[in-house]
């Protein structure tokens, strides 16, 4: 197994720069997710690694081997395509056997390997079925089987769940994680769906619209400690409020014009904090306490008016208008059948949050 390393890679399409000087290291045997909005160049990175596109500058390494100019068919990398790209003129068996026949593997060995692979993906019942006779989920498994049988060093997955319905997705995600942990192959998973990325990834990279990587980290690091307002609002939801910074001995204070002064815990890395400088603070909606009665023991407090209520099943989402006309979003767990206090439209509510739950952001 080997990892993938991109070194200062640039790629243009029709003269337009899609990614510029991008460097990225994906460790061997890791489940890595590339998360970004459409047009962020994440698919381009995947196509460069697979070899469908060639770089304009920079190098790509598979382990220690420079594969920048290696033809697609000689790279030990396989892809699961977004719409699977299964061969319509071949049945399930022939689709899965394709790479083995290309490599002139003896017939009896091909048969053993294909049947073994199809069994892992619970497809043994469909061996001689035509592709168009299969459901979306089955086609997706054939696409995985076809790529895995080739024993690639790296498996690329390009939005593999896009064509599946919601219920199936969660199940497939769990299966993917299990598959990866048994194979120990490096998986690179491209998606625009934060839920998918957070679920499967060991580490993930967040890309912005300019084709730059904003942050790389474990799902927990990304979610709990976003380094920019883009990451904070792209992964999950976040209330990002602008203010100016006041530094004290072991606490930071954010002064928001026309509102109040809020306390925030100092981050580990604090060399970028400038006394009196402009700063953003991000608070996750689920980390805000909402109540009609005043509560004790919180560092930050503000009063607002409820403007919108959306019931989501396991939680309820409120949009609250603050005195300076800013809107803030709050999630509350629906823990009881009959909550003690019912919050309604236009109610005056108290919002509370701890200073540890405030993330300070530079941009």
């Amino acid at each position, binding site marked *: 197994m080997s990892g993938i390393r991109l070194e200062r890679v640039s790629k243009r399409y029709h003269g337009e720069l899609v990614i510029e000087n991008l460097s990225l290291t994906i460790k061997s045997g890791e489940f890595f997710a590339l998360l970004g909005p459409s047009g962020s160049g994440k698919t381009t990175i995947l196509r460069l690694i*697979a*070899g*469908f596109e060639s770089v304009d500058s920079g190098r790509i390494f598979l382990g220690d081997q420079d594969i920048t100019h290696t*033809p*697609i*068919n*000689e790279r030990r*990398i*396989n*892809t699961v*395509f977004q*719409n699977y*790209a*299964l*061969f*319509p*003129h*071949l049945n399930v068996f*022939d689709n899965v056997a*394709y*790479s083995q*026949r*290309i*490599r002139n593997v003896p017939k009896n060995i091909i048969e053993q390997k294909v049947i073994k692979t199809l069994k892992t993906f619970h497809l043994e019942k469909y061996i001689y079925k035509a592709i168009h006779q299969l459901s979306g989920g089955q086609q997706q498994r054939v696409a995985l089987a*076809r*790529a895995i049988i*080739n024993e690639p060093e790296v498996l690329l997955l390009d939005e593999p769940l896009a064509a599946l319905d919601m219920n199936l997705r969660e199940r497939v995600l769990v299966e993917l994680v299990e598959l990866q942990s048994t194979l120990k192959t490096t998986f690179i998973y491209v998606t625009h769906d934060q839920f998918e990325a957070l679920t499967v990834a060991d580490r993930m990279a967040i890309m912005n619209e300019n084709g730059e990587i904003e942050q790389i980290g474990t799902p927990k690091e990304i979610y709990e400690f976003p380094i920019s307002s883009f990451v904070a609002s792209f992964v999950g939801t976040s209330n990002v409020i602008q203010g100016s910074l006041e530094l004290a001995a072991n606490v930071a204070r954010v002064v928001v014009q026309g509102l109040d002064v809020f306390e925030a815990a100092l981050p580990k890395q604090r060399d970028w904090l400038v006394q009196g400088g402009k700063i953003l603070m991000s608070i996750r909606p689920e980390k805000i306490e909402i109540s009609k009665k005043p509560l004790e023991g919180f560092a930050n407090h503000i009063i607002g008016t409820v403007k919108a209520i959306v019931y989501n099943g396991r939680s309820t989402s409120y949009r609250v208008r603050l005195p300076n006309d800013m809107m803030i979003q709050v999630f509350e767990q629906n823990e009881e059948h009959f909550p003690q206090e019912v919050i309604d439209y236009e109610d005056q509510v108290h919002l509370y949050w701890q200073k540890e739950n405030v993330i300070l952001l530079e941009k």
Partner: protein
Amino acid sequence: MSASVLKFLEKARTYFAFIELRKMGTFFFALPAIMWQVLFLYVPIAAIITMSVINKVAPGAWYSLTWQHYHEILNPLFLNIMWRSLLLALCTSMLCMTFAYPVAYFLALRATTWKNTLLLLLFLPFWTNFLIQVYAWFFILERNGFLNRVLLKVGLITEPLQIMNTPSAIYIVMFFCYLPFMIMPIYTSLEKINRRLFEASYDLGATPWQTFKRVIFPLSMSGVKTGFFLVFIPTFGEYVIPAMLGGGKTFYVGSLLSYFFIDSPNMHLGSSFTVVSGFVLIVAVVFITIMFKWLMRLARG
């Protein structure tokens, strides 16, 4: 309306439920086409088959059944003509296929900037009357024609070639006139292929040649088959080109039919010849279909 009448209508409706109105409507709209099929295809075929097996014994007498016309038609002279037509059709289709595939491949998968212009040029002959197309070849192929003059100028020949009124003229013009009919379906089938499949093939380790053999060619096979029959079937019975450019000396199926029905009316002999050549055509089509299947299996490895 009283309730009993309504009840009666309801009962009647369930009773006649097998007459589905929607299907009746479809049938109604299809009627003109069906009438056309029956009047101009099935009735003539029935008439020809009947003509081929009956004989009028004496004026004013009843017709009698006979195999006599088939005995007459199955003689080496006529069979030779049929064989010549079959060969012409096969050669033309093979020639067209060989040249059409690369052209269609280039147009569908390689051409970018000039694609639409090239397609337009390719289909321009369809807007020209077939007869005019054939006449145009006179100016190219005749003794003082374009081809001979060019060849003389270049110095490839010292004396004008006699192409007109020879089988070569027939083959040349057949090839060019039927070429677009071969290119079009192959182009369409190649154009339809999802390009991701090529990437998938490379991704799984295939070289461009292996990708062509295992993915592109099998997926364009339906187009090749369509094109082959679009050329093979009409060229087998082609009348205009051999008649005009072959000098009328060599007979083909088309010219022989015209001879039987128009020049020296012998409806019975003509009919039996039609039935036999129809049978030969069907056998040839079945045989070619099997050949294509076999070719497909060969490509799959």
